């Protein structure tokens, strides 16, 4: 008997853990992809990567002090972005160099701490995610973070767009740009924390960069870009989770892989369409 398409789609949803995993992945995809547009437009891909890596020592320290890991991760994320700014201005080195130094240093610290303390947390899951191990409680935390990110971006949209487009103009006209910068760094750190369980801190950068990059290829204005970015990220999360269920492959890897495939798919299609148009002219 042939299995219908609908049954293929319905079967995984018969399990509680898959429902929670899917819901959480969708929430995380929305959270990260809203910020993705600004990460891409402001050239923060590497900075986002640095913040995500810096979250590791924050988690380790939080576990050691027995405080919620989300607090440690958040402090480490914001702290690392401040440290990068400080290193950049004090040592008078280029931004990407400062990021490289801080990012690897923080990540190394995290690895040392975790290997030394040997906590009951699986480092592999922190690094690469484990959506099927997500508890409903984790899901609620991700949902709360997602709501906060969505609300903040909605309220401050014009300031965020002005600042990420032209920081000097924004400062002169009177937008508190330093404050806004750190608000964005906090949102980025929160988004990364919310993605810990689903894609992990290594692959979260895919959700923070790739949906925005893909959306930029096809958008005329910023609201379109944010919308397209969300759509792409959510599709990647859903398709990725199904692939991981049926092919028994890493779910974080599958989600990130689908997002990457969509990017190249759109890029190739766009290039071919342009060629075709030029030929017909």
């Amino acid at each position: 008997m042939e299995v219908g398409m609908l049954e293929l789609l319905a079967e995984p949803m018969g399990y509680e853990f898959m429902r929670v995993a899917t819901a959480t992945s969708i929430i995380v995809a929305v959270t990260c992809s809203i910020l993705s547009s600004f990460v891409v437009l402001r050239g923060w891909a590497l900075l986002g990567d640095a913040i995500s890596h810096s979250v590791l020592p924050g988690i380790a320290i939080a576990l050691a002090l027995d405080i919620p890991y989300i607090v440690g991760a958040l402090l480490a994320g914001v702290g690392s972005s401040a440290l990068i700014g400080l290193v950049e201005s004090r040592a008078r080195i280029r931004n990407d160099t400062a990021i490289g130094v801080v990012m690897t240093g923080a990540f190394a610290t995290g690895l040392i701490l975790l290997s030394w303390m040997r906590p009951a947390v699986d480092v592999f899951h922190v690094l690469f995610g484990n959506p099927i191990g997500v508890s409903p409680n984790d899901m609620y935390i991700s949902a709360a973070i997602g709501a906060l990110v969505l609300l903040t971006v909605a309220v401050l949209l014009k300031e965020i767009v002005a600042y990420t487009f032209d920081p000097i103009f924004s400062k002169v006209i009177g937008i508190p740009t330093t404050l806004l910068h750190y608000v964005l760094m906090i949102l980025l750190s929160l988004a990364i924390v919310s993605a810990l369980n689903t894609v992990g801190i290594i692959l979260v950068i895919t959700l923070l960069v790739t949906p925005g990059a893909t959306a930029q290829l096809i958008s005329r204005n910023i609201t379109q870009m944010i919308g397209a970015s969300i759509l792409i990220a959510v599709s990647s999360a859903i398709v990725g989770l199904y692939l991981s269920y049926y092919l028994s492959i890493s779910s974080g890897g599958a989600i990130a892989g689908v997002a990457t495939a969509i990017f190249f798919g759109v890029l190739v299609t766009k290039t071919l369409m342009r060629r075709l148009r030029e030929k017909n002219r």
Partner: protein
Amino acid sequence: MYAIELESATLRYDDVVALREVTFRSEAGKMIALIGPNGAGKTSILKMLAGLVKPTSGRVKVLGKDPSKTRGLVAYTPQREEVYWEYPLTVRDVVAMGNIRRRGVFRWLDSHDSRVDTALRLVMLEDLASRKISELSGGQQQRTFLARAICQGGEVYLLDEPIAGLDAPSETILLEILKTLRDQGKTIVMATHDISATLEIFDYVALIRNRLVAFGPPKEVLTSENLANTYGGSTIALHLDDLEKVAKWR
């Protein structure tokens, strides 16, 4: 009251002196050109006037106040390379940013505001209002910036290298718009590393080379001696052609 005023303004970055003891002032409704080679400190002067950096010593005043207290009254347009032109925004979207203070928090910008239309008309970009900024020429990008400043409604316009890389017709259009603004009583401060005959339309010229070489009306200031002191003996050859032009209208 002067529109802009620098009094022995010195600016140091660590041990590098960007500007030493610069003193000049201008009343409102004038066009001032800051001229000097790259790295001479022109942008530093603009940044001090904008309140982005504080002088290490000396005094800077804009509209009689400390520059940190003139938010909204000073419009700044950075060098074109400072922004990412692939940002998905239309000309109208960028111009509407000038309204950002007026809208206050919690309200999105309205790109179809009447101030936006007025500004677009003044810089002659009405027809390109819905165009993506990545599809504009350099001159049109610069006029978009200028329209944003007009929409903001500033009294003092600080323009960093607006004519760099523009062709002659675009430069003429831009300077004509600046003249219109001046005639409305606005003060224009423009940095440029090019010496050209068009500088004649400015009321004052400040020659800068990490200090003030000369300040005054262009006809008095743009002498070959002053220019040699500004650009240095070796690079002056590059500007001989311009010097001839300058000499013609002296």
